[in-house]
């Protein structure tokens, strides 16, 4: 599989080029910040009118990852819906699609800052999930260890010979891993940002998503 192997607190994980995290020993696939129905919320708030296809696009990619991995557990790491009203506006066919993806799987929606309440689709809804030795929660907290989180959507911009390359990225050090956003209409916070710099240890790495996931020291300048 096209991915980058890492170890966090003894757990052997694979960061996939798609932006998903695969934990083979637990048959667990984790995706973060799907922001489903973002277009609906943006339009509702008078923002740009984006076509309502991002949900389908995001689910298409998720289905492909599930197909590859045959994961038994799926953890959606928060901000799965752009907000609660957006979740209500989920098209019937997309709702059915999610139901099909959930069939035969343990599916966990972690609570995010955008989607704090329970939502009207299958699966369990939790504030956080502990699967020893790792904890899955939406927002990284200082002073914890063995934590998988999302929320910040890190991205990395890298000057190379002839081009600046900007990609969503995983950030990882000995204590934590911060996931990139999986949703189609999601931006990112550059790894240079002070919040990320203070969360991550000096020897942290960034793993860029894309056709060939690439690991580099986390850029901070």
């Amino acid at each position, binding site marked *: 599989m096209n991915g*980058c192997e890492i170890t966090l607190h003894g757990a052997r994980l694979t960061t996939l080029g798609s932006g998903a995290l695969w934990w083979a020993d637990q048959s667990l696939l984790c995706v973060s910040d799907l922001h489903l129905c973002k277009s609906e919320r943006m*339009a509702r708030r*008078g923002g*740009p*009118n*984006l*076509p*309502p*296809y*991002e949900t*389908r*696009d995001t689910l298409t990619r998720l289905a492909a990852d599930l197909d590859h991995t045959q994961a038994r557990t799926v953890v959606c790491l928060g901000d799965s819906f752009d907000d609660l009203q957006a979740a209500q506006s989920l098209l019937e066919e997309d709702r059915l699609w999610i139901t099909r993806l959930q069939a035969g799987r343990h599916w966990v929606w972690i609570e995010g800052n955008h989607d704090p309440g329970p939502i009207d689709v299958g699966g369990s809804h939790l504030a956080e999930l502990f699967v020893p030795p790792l904890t899955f929660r939406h927002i990284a907290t200082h002073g914890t260890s063995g934590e998988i989180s999302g929320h910040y959507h890190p991205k990395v911009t*890298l*000057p*190379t*010979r*002839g*081009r600046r*390359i900007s990609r969503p990225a995983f950030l990882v050090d000995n204590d934590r891993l911060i996931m990139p956003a999986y949703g*189609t*209409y999601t931006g990112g916070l550059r790894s240079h940002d002070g919040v990320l710099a203070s969360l991550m240890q000096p020897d942290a790495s960034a793993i*860029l998503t*894309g*056709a*060939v996931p*690439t*690991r*580099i*020291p986390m850029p901070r300048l």
Partner: protein
Amino acid sequence: MTHLPPLFADWFAAKGWQIHPHQQDMLDRAEAPALLLIAPTGGGKTLAGFLPTLVDLASQPHAGLHTLYVSPLKALAADIKRNLTTPVTEMTLPVRIEDRTGDTTATQKRRQRADPPHILLTTPESLALLTSYPDAPHIFKGLKRVIVDEIHALAESKRGDQLMLALGRLQTLCPDLKRVGLSATVEDPAAIAHSLACHPDPCEILQADPGPAPDIAMLTTDAAPPWSGGGARYAIPAVLDLVRQHKTTLIFHNTRAQAEIFFHNLWLANEDSLPIGIHHGSLDRAQRQKVEAAIVAGQLRAIVCTGTLDLGIDWGDVDLIIQIGAPKNVKRLVQRIGRANHRYNAPSKARLVPANRFEVVECVAAIDAALAGDLDGDPRGPGPRDVLCQHILITAAAGSFDADALFAEITTVGAYSTLTRAGFDACLDFVATGGYALRGYDQWQRLKQAPDGTWALRDPRGDRRIRMNIGTIQDTDTLKVRMKNTRGGKPLGEIEEAFAATLTPGDTFLIGGRIVRYDSLREMTVQVTRDAAKKPKIATFMGTKFATSTQLSQRILRLFQQEIWPDFPAHTADWLALQRRVSRLPEPDRLLIECFPHDGRTHHAIYGFAGRNAMQTLGLLLTKRMEELGLDPLGFLATDYATLIWGLEPITDPAPLFDIDALRDGLDRWLAGNAVMKRTFRASATIAGLIDRNTPTARKSGRQASFSSDILYDTLAKYDPNHLMLQITREEAMRGLVDFGRIEDMARRIGPRVDLITLDRLTPLAAPLMLETGRVPVQGMAEERLLAEEAARLMATAGLPPP
């Protein structure tokens, strides 16, 4: 023959003037439904256009709007107002003249709608806006004549298409409306007449005496132009000499950035402190107006300018035109030459200053063509449908409408005379619902159909949003620049957003001829402070990219074939000889490809001479083929004469790349997804009203606009590839950007005669390509390779094992 009324005859006599034959012709044909007058600059064209109006208004009282004057420039409207006021005042005619442009105050605009003047001077955008009001029938009641000035400048653009649609509207409101077009020398008067006529009625063409041939030549300098670049700094002493010898000189540049740099250098060399100003579209309006006033008052000896002064503002005393850089197109050169000397029957004087050695050749070719009267131009296809979509929205803003009547009205417009009902209905459906894929979306449900079949806005308050987004000009995204101080600071002008993004605090750049230091970005405004000492980083403006006409390109290729070049300056002849020695010169019936390393990457210069758009398409198709062949291209850029492709691997066998059938196969595939198409889509989607550039709250920044338009494009391409907006994007791309026909012509011309020459360095001919802007990145495996390289380097630097 219509005799000039005594009042007018006396006025002419008092001035010591005689009515020009074409002015008399216009008077005689005042009742013609449509008339096109072609006359050289300074030939009294404007008076010829207005004479029938003034005579009519002098002979009988008229209530309300009588004549509408439309010009492509608001500065021109102000200028004409001044010039018209003279005869009106001197003959004490009962005529009220006002202008209405983006600069007119809201109060005055409101008053004009309630109580229109006899003559209203306006722009296509302001006219479109006027037609969008429910009280349009009242405003235009009694309108008798429309004069479209500088119609050649409008006929080739979407602004012209929009204007003609608005004229169709006016014709419905005022069936007796007479149309008059005024134009300088054009290559195809019949095409312009067709666009002006109320189809299927004809439009008569009047040709005035073209006047004496211009005095046009290359500027001879002691210093040779550089190998590359666009600044023409070498010519500054010679240019200053010319400025000293003339009363007023206009110094034209093709881009604003070049104008800025040249102006800066000109001042550094201006030891006599000659008063010299700068004028271009990115400068703050107040500053521009100050310069314009100084020119009119005769206070300036020279004005460094760009296309904003292309059109006929009556400067009076301009006696020399200097064109810096190759004019790219003969018609524009002839236009600019016409700026000098507004006295009829005196030759205009112009000097061309090539900015680099390649341009020497182009300037020679252009002068030859201008003197031969061999103007260039490509026919325009049928009217673009994005403009039509906007027109339907404008119509809806004015009130409910009947689709049959609107269709009939639109097909009276020359460019839309071949529009099919199905083509119209598709646009109407798109405007009404957003088109199939977007149908489910409330925001795009703009129109509703009443039981009687008429169409109207679903939400009547939607008219405001429509009016805010009227227009077809696609500005490059710019940010305002202001001096930093506590009270907001003096506005200096605008820079491109993309350029602003490259600045970090402390960087210096040129604007309005002064060096400023970038301080911060606050709410879409770039704050700067004065900084006199440092050498500036250069402000970049995309500006207008002129495409060299194929006709000019062919002249250049023919010039290349000469054994020696006795008519060229020695440095250019030497340069071409050097190119011939180290590589070879492109030939009309062969294709030359040079392959050389530069800047750590392999570069290929492909000299197709097919014009910028075709060369751009070739770049897209070739990089796609190279990606398939594992040659890892990284990007390309296109100029009028060459495509430059860079990447990680050299081409060794060009034959499979230039297989025209394979290229044609690739066309459809890349049409679906590339940066150029996205750019086209964005422009068309904005014109068609799918993307609002302006919203009641705030103007969207370019990045926001392209963010949403790129996503729109991608998703429509994926889920609704036949959506009207994608059809329009393809039409637009084929129309201007793709020019695949020219690639096929080129392929036919060269046949199998492709020469691949591998060199160890840049060639003389390739050097100018390196400085071109408009690089298109290629997203492919080369990016993964670069990333892997950089990652390995970073890991090694950090002392970590490679992954």
